[in-house]
């Protein structure tokens, strides 16, 4: 946080380059979260853009004793919620992304097929979660935030985060069920 704090203070002192440095530091992580929630590259880019526009006008109100990452993620999550609320339907498939991911240059056709199957099953299981549960899973497993940080990002009590993660894990376990052991062996 000390580097972030320095950058924020520089920005507040009028150094625009510090804002660019903050963007450079956090763009990938925030974009990844937005992409994971929306599954739409265009929407994720707009959310990232809006996130930094909001941050620009609100950095002066930031509590510098708090870490910046969760604060920025909180903005992204709020914007993503708004975006999801406007969408009638959830995007249908991540197949293109999965195709691109599993087609690694070093994987044999069999390995690629196996990996693809694992990821397809996990993807399906993740899709069966509601948005609140999915968000907790994304922030916990993808971004590595603590439960306390997730509670801050989602602006809800810690107990709610624990409950959502518990139910999400139960659903995922049910969906992946008997496949878990063989899946682990193939990892």
């Amino acid at each position, binding site marked *: 946080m000390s580097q972030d704090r320095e950058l924020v203070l520089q920005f507040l002192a009028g150094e625009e380059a510090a804002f660019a440095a903050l963007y450079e530091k956090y763009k990938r992580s925030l974009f990844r979260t937005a992409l994971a929630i929306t599954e739409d590259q265009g929407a994720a880019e707009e959310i990232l853009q809006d996130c930094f526009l909001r941050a620009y006008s609100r950095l002066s109100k930031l509590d510098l004793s708090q870490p910046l990452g969760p604060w920025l993620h909180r903005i992204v999550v709020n914007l993503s919620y708004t975006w999801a609320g406007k969408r009638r339907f959830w995007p249908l498939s991540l197949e293109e992304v999965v195709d691109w*991911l599993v087609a690694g240059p070093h994987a044999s056709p069999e390995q690629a097929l196996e990996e693809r199957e694992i990821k397809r099953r996990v993807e399906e299981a993740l899709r069966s979660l509601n948005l609140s549960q999915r968000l907790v899973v994304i922030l916990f497993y993808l971004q590595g935030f603590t439960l306390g940080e997730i509670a801050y990002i989602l602006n809800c009590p810690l107990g709610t985060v624990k409950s959502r993660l518990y139910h999400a894990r139960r659903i995922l376990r049910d969906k992946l069920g008997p496949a878990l052991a063989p899946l682990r062996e193939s990892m």
Partner: protein
Amino acid sequence: MEDDLDLILRWTIKDLYPDVEPSPRVWLGIWSRLNASPRLVAKTSRAWTTRWAGAFYRHLEEGVWRPDWPVERYASPRAILEMKHLGPLYQQKQTILVGWSLYRALPNHSF
């Protein structure tokens, strides 16, 4: 303690949701909004900014951008209609200012 589910989720989720570089047009969009006047921002939508920045970026990449080009080069018909309310001189001036602000703002002018 981690169980099978944790291991599989940690292993797969990073691949399902990859760590990719957002398009440079995001930063261009941010800068174009921040460097435009409040009046211009109020008159234009975020979607327009994204489109404008995308077109601007492409032109820069192709090396054919010129700061004296009119806004019509970068805007959608609807955005042009919105911009018309600002008056031609203002449009032109703003386009140049925003364009050069963007150009100067990016590290080493590298697009």
